């Protein structure tokens, strides 16, 4: 029997029973907008992950990164996310047009807490909004506008346990196959060899906007 099946599946009550109840104060930190602290976090964050789902609920989680503050808070309920040069698969966009719900997790290097922002998004090509997202003289073609429903700081234990920001953790990187290896192994197609694909990555990485 494969590992992924056959185990006891818990329902909500059993799961809650094992997890325990949160402190009553914990829920108080959940805001329905971005307060000054959240705005400050986002204004200094160079990286976030964005979770989206299609109409059926199948999810994608994608990384977004740029200059700190690249996700622009237009006001306390509105975020603007640029679409920078990527692989053009557009998974997040095809999800958002089917299902507006998005979950964002913002990181600031050196800070163990992360900022969680949930909301509803749409994709736009509005000229003014794209102008505000111009970077290195390149204006993105698309932008994602997020109406904020929830925002709160997530505690730092996971980043403390993982020692994510510690320099000595970087020795892990050498154990990871190159991106060309990932691609070549996944594609298993003649002509797509890892070395060639790595060169494509290297070239592509020279052009960030």
């Amino acid at each position, binding site marked *: 029997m494969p590992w992924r099946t056959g185990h006891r599946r818990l329902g909500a009550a059993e799961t809650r029973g094992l997890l325990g109840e949160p402190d009553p104060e914990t829920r108080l930190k959940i805001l329905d907008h971005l307060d000054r602290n959240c*705005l*400050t976090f986002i*204004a*200094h964050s*160079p990286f976030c992950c964005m979770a989206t789902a299609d109409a059926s609920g199948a999810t994608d989680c994608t990384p977004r990164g*740029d*200059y*700190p*503050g*690249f996700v*622009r808070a237009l006001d306390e309920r509105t975020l603007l996310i640029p679409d920078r040069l990527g692989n053009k698969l557009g998974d997040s966009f095809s999800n958002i047009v089917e299902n507006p719900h998005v979950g964002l997790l913002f990181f600031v290097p050196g800070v163990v807490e992360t900022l969680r922002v949930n909301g509803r998004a749409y994709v736009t090509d509005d000229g*003014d909004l794209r*102008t*505000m*997202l*111009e*970077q*290195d*003289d390149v204006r993105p073609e698309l932008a994602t506008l997020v109406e904020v429903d929830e925002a709160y700081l997530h505690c730092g234990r996971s980043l403390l346990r993982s020692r994510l920001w510690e320099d000595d953790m970087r020795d892990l990187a050498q154990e990871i196959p190159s991106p060309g290896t990932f691609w070549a192994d996944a594609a298993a197609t003649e002509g797509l060899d890892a070395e060639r694909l790595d060169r494509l990555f290297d070239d592509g990485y*020279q*052009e*960030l906007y």
Partner: protein
Amino acid sequence: MMTRAGGRLLTVTGIDRPARDIVALHLADPAGGPLPEWEPGAHIDVQLITRHLRQYSLCGSPDDRTGYRIAVLRERLSRGASAYVHSYLDVGKKVRVWEPRNHFGLRPAERYVFLAAGVGITPILPMVMRAREAGVPWRLAYSVRTLEEAAFRDELAELGEAVTLRATGTGGRLDLGGFVGDLREGTGVYCCGSPGFVEAAEKAVAGWPEGSFHAERFVPVPRDFGPSEPFVAVCARSDVRVRVDAGVGLLAALRREGVRVAGGCLKGVCGSCAVTVLDGVPQHRDSLLGPGTLDRMHACVSRAATPEIVLDV
């Protein structure tokens, strides 16, 4: 994200609001040391902790070596830096600053006419002060949409009748032709403002002697250079030859090959990316240099007029 070598961290020692939507930042060496000298018209590159790099005119006094003053407009469609400065920069925070540069220097003249619009007053103000100290006759027209947008009004008020402050929202546009007058010989005209304002000023001095008119621009002069041709940049110091294809800029092509060149506005208005030309002919597409300049070029937008150009990079 561009990281740029050099520069020094300066502390924000004061912030005030010389007009609605403008903050003035006072910057000083954290150790209290003197700052590099500058002349009216100079600007500095300022890099925020967010790594956004922008150019701001120095609008304090060149005689004050202990601090710089710059003014930052809150832009409705800020691309990040202006919004950050207005929302998050505080006294005690630090910014990275490079040596002042000047493409807008005040040249000797028998009299000066200064034309400023909006936040364009920033490079003009030290020029006015310099002219006044030197005892050279001058007058200033300062155009704003509303009086609340007029910066440094206290300082300007002390200068008396030589200043014409015009709120175009209520008072209509300035008659720039009438203001500059017709005493063309020996008059230096210095202008800074929106593209429309600079264009209007340029029209007002049409036919004046060569070298009478000087403008500082925030956006490039729109010009058509025809199709871009590929060329080869020979990098003398790095000992590499870089092919610059038609669709690629010189700065981008150099960086791709690992040749480090500073970048600034990337639009050909700030001059941060100047490189020395050793051989070949540059085709200047920036708003600073003309065809007469053969020994340097701005790599962000300019190209080569010869199949090869040799650069000291």
